[in-house]
């Protein structure tokens, strides 16, 4: 939907000829839609950048957003949408910054008049649509990469393996356990077993909101893998509703030890390793 050289020339003449008025009017329209969430000076700077990019591209000949000559224009649009996406603006609020140019152009074309005013306006309008779509695309891309980054961070953050005692490590699972997370948990737990030489691991599922057959499958796989390596796993933190779900679903934990709380699991392991726990006599104050 590129403009031909003639149309581009007229667009540049319009925008370049009334630079001050265009940016002022453009900024005003955008500021109205953003309701003061971005300072006027900042907005004006962004609008001026865009204005300069459009005029700059138009001066080189026909405006075609996919052509090499429009590199600067594409960069300016990406810059704008990236900034907006990171600042948490909605897609509408971002694209309206571009579509506002249509209103400005409508006024300018109407004032200029002429035989092909309508034709020009339609052509300009199509160009603005294209700019808007491009902005929207890069806005979505930025958002998607943000989400991907956060998901990755979440994956790393939410699976710590802690040492509870000499030879006893624990994994407090928090949140829903999907295949990707289960894989990470499994790998990290097994690696920790090797690194610390701990023969006992406690998997605590207090923070897991629901246990379905898939989650149970993941936990069972982890336990079997740990067994293959020569370590024993105990599952703890089974809440009453979860116990009922497990029974209702017919999930068999076999000979894997399950305990109601992490404390019970630790006591169980300590008994297995032969550690004696005793309450110390309260000291008598003479």
């Amino acid at each position: 939907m590129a403009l031909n050289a003639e149309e581009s020339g007229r667009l540049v003449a319009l925008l370049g000829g009334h630079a001050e008025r265009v940016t002022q009017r453009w900024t005003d329209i955008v500021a109205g839609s953003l309701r003061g969430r971005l300072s006027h000076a900042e907005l004006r700077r962004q609008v001026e950048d865009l204005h300069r990019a459009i005029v700059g591209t138009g001066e080189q000949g026909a405006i075609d957003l996919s052509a090499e000559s429009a590199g600067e224009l594409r960069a300016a649009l990406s810059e704008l949408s990236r900034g907006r996406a990171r600042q948490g603006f909605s897609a509408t609020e971002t694209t309206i910054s571009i579509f506002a140019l249509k209103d400005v152009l409508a006024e300018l074309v109407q004032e200029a008049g002429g035989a092909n005013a309508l034709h020009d306006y339609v052509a300009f309008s199509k160009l603005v649509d294209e700019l808007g779509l491009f902005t929207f695309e890069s806005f979505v891309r930025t958002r998607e990469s943000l989400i991907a980054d956060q998901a990755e961070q979440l994956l790393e953050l939410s699976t710590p393996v802690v040492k509870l005692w000499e030879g006893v490590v624990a994994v407090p699972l928090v949140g829903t356990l999907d295949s990707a997370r289960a894989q990470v948990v499994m790998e990290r737990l097994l690696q920790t077993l090797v690194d610390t030489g701990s023969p006992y691991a406690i998997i605590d599922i207090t923070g897991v909101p629901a246990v379905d057959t898939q989650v149970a499958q993941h936990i069972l796989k982890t336990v079997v893998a740990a067994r293959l390596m020569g370590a024993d796993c105990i599952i703890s933190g089974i809440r009453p509703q979860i116990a009922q779900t497990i029974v209702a679903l017919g999930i068999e934990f076999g000979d894997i030890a399950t305990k109601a709380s992490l404390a019970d699991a630790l006591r169980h392991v300590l008994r297995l390793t032969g550690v004696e726990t005793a309450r110390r006599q309260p000291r008598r104050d003479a």
Partner: protein
Amino acid sequence: MERVPILKIGDILLVSIQLDMSDQTAVQLQDDLAERIVATGCHGVIIDITALDIVDSFVGRMLSTIASISKVLDAETVVVGMRPAVAITLVELGLSLNGIRTALNVERGMELIAAARADELDYQLDDDPDAETATP
């Protein structure tokens, strides 16, 4: 042909597999091990697979066979040093290495054999009729 070395440490034979196992190497290892168990009278065999990147059904069956042979010759077999990636692959493949005891490292494996041995000795002592009359 390559051979897997068998080291004797006290009452235990240590086999550290450092090369890719072929049919021949596996058969050779089984022969050698059976002979060494009889010759030394050891009661424990530790197979170290730390260096193995891949444990497939072939290696799994070899480990089971070695464990069974040792059992017949009254020696306890422990497989030690399985890597996390190997364990995960085995679980995904559905191979559970039934009848094989495992430990995290050689040290734990030796403890395991010592504990199993002690249990067995206790059991034999308990069965001894003289011991029963001696302690009324």
